[in-house]
């Protein structure tokens, strides 16, 4: 009789699945127990809010008492994909919170709530996800907003740069406030809250392929409290906008189009850090087109400009605030720059991707 090849039927034979606690795998996006555990272990400890604890697929959230059903809702949504996901001064999580808080605040709204949707790439270390969640927790606490709803999906390796995050924000705009890109008027003053170009150049240097090192930190920050002080000091503020993608130049062009006015800037008044200016020059970039994530443009009536400037400068995020120009009637829908020698050039919208210089 042939020898039985099987030595024993004793011993463990049930293939219990591994508990993946170090790395995101496809199962985390299935909606089953792995998803529930991920949410419970990674997200809930830091995104703690009553609506989230209620565990529904929607959030029921109250308006502030003072609203008394007057005013309007401010709603904003932003998708975030950045490479690398961590960079000097911040990470994609901080960006996702601040970006949407800031967008809402630019309407004069008091930001109240955020939702956060995550697309996670298979293979993302959970420790990295935890750092991002911690970062979002800190930023939302600083801004005074609660994260009240969220969603998580997982895609195959190679289909996301680590993680993509979409945040939607809800805020309340008091009845009296009318702030928007369409309200700029000739004679108004244009202010910027500080140094331009930090975020875009910080991300580029973090990519490591510039061929040089530069100590540049992203300026990513929640601006809602600075904005609240600004509006108190300059209650007739007409326009607020953060110069993110496309930089100052593109954002001012948008405003000029919306309001059907011209904008005249003074080049020497625009604050740019010397290291950012140098890094941009070496690559052939113009800092006026580089993204910012912790700056705002304010357009206010001339008689409130001083008060607005002082309110900005009093904030930790506005210490370098400056008056940089004025709104003019003609030429309409144009942004012009007066150089240090008094010559003038157009500051146009950028055609597409900024590309580094050749020679």
């Amino acid at each position: 009789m042939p020898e039985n090849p099987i030595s024993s039927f004793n011993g463990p034979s049930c293939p219990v699945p591994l508990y993946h606690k170090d790395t995101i795998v496809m199962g985390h996006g299935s909606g089953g127990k792995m998803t529930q555990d991920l949410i419970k272990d990674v997200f809930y400890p830091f995104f703690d809010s009553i609506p989230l604890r209620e565990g529904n697929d929607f959030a029921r959230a109250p308006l502030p008492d003072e609203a008394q059903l007057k005013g309007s809702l401010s709603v904003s949504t932003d998708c975030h994909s950045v490479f690398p996901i961590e960079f000097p001064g911040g990470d994609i999580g901080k960006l996702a919170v601040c970006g949407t808080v800031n967008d809402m605040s630019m309407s004069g709204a008091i930001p109240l709530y955020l939702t956060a949707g995550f697309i996670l790439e298979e293979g993302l270390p959970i420790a990295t996800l935890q750092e991002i969640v911690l970062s979002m927790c800190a930023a939302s606490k600083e801004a005074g907003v609660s994260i009240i709803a969220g969603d998580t999906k997982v895609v195959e390796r190679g289909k996301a740069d680590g993680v993509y995050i979409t945040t939607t924000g809800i805020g309340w705009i008091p009845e009296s406030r009318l702030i928007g890109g369409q309200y700029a008027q000739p004679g108004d003053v244009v202010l910027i809250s500080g140094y331009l170009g930090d975020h875009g150049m910080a991300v580029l240097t973090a990519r490591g392929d510039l061929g040089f090192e530069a100590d540049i930190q992203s300026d990513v920050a929640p601006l809602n409290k600075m904005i609240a002080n600004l509006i108190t000091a300059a209650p007739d503020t007409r326009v607020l906008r953060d110069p993110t993608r496309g930089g100052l130049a593109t954002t001012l062009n948008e405003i000029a189009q919306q309001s059907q006015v011209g904008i005249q800037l003074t080049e020497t008044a625009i604050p740019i850090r010397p290291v950012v200016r140098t890094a941009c020059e070496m690559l052939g970039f113009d800092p006026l087109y580089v993204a910012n994530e912790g700056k705002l443009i304010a357009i206010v009536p001339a008689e409130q400009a001083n008060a607005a400037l002082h309110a900005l400068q009093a904030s930790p995020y506005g210490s370098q605030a400056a008056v940089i120009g004025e709104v003019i009637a003609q030429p309409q829908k144009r942004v012009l720059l007066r150089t240090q020698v008094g010559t003038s050039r157009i500051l146009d919208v950028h055609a597409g991707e900024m590309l580094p210089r050749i020679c």
Partner: protein
Amino acid sequence: MIDFVSGFRNADNIKVLVEKIHRATTQPWNIMEICGGQTHSILHYGLDQLLPPEIELVHGPGCPVCVTSLELIDQALEIASQSNVIFTSFGDMLRVPGSHRDLFSVRAAGGDVRVVYSPLDAVQIALKNPEKQVVFFAIGFETTAPPNIASVIQARNLGLTNYSVLVSQVCVPPAMHAILSAPQNRVQGFLAAGHVCAIMGYWEYLPIAEQYQIPITVTGFESVDLLQGIYQTIVQLEKGSFSVENAYPRLVTQPGNRSAQAMINQVYEVVDRNWRGIGPIPNSGWGLRENFSQFDAQKRFKVGHIKTQESEVCIAGQILQGIKKPNQCPAFGIQCTPENPLGATMVSSEGACAAYYRYRR
């Protein structure tokens, strides 16, 4: 640390030079700046607005992206579309329109097209991807020749068989001859390209100045550099002299960078080149020598048969020769914009049309 920048942008220095130019100018003059970087600088700082109305600045063909022939662009697109190729290039080339598409659209269709800051980065890509063919689009005037050929030398020393270059190297002096000998030429003085001269020196311009009796001033790129170059050219024009002067002495000498020139001579030989918008100019460029031909992408990929089809509307050729200005083109700003360029001069960060569109519409 010596500051080589702020003095050359200083408002007081600019003012002094502008006044000197105004005092020196008594009649109309046309001066051509060769280099696209100089064109952009002039428009960026608005220097032409400071000059007396008698001086007209005419913009030259010194934009390597603009003058790369349509055939070479189409060959690049053909190579980049192949599945085992990583096609690398300076950023500006990605948007230059070929006969039907550009490198961005090849990338969107799945081609592996990558921007590099230096050709040596392309060699690194070849090292890290031995199963792929890596091609670098080696465009430029004399300025980019040393790094372009350094990449070939490095690839040879590393024994790489998967690296090649698609060469579109062009030279300034033949272009100057072509412009000055054209019947409709109106150029009376030249600002020579400072960075080209940093490599090549300016000894090549002495016979040109002599032959055409035209003053040539080697000029840099900052406001003060450009105004100094213009001033020295005007002084010569006003007194009727026609020598070559160096207004960029902190970087340029008459012999130039001898070791760079020796290296160029080792790898490149003079060839005829087709200049987009101008046409063929004999002995106007460089190509790989026979003993480096294994690095020639044109030979490796056998793309020499490609035919081209230029836009009928685009007048880039006349603009590159300084015959017309961008805002004299009927398509400028209408059919032809940076988002939808008909010709290379609207694409490149050194192209005259792009400069006008951006700063002067």
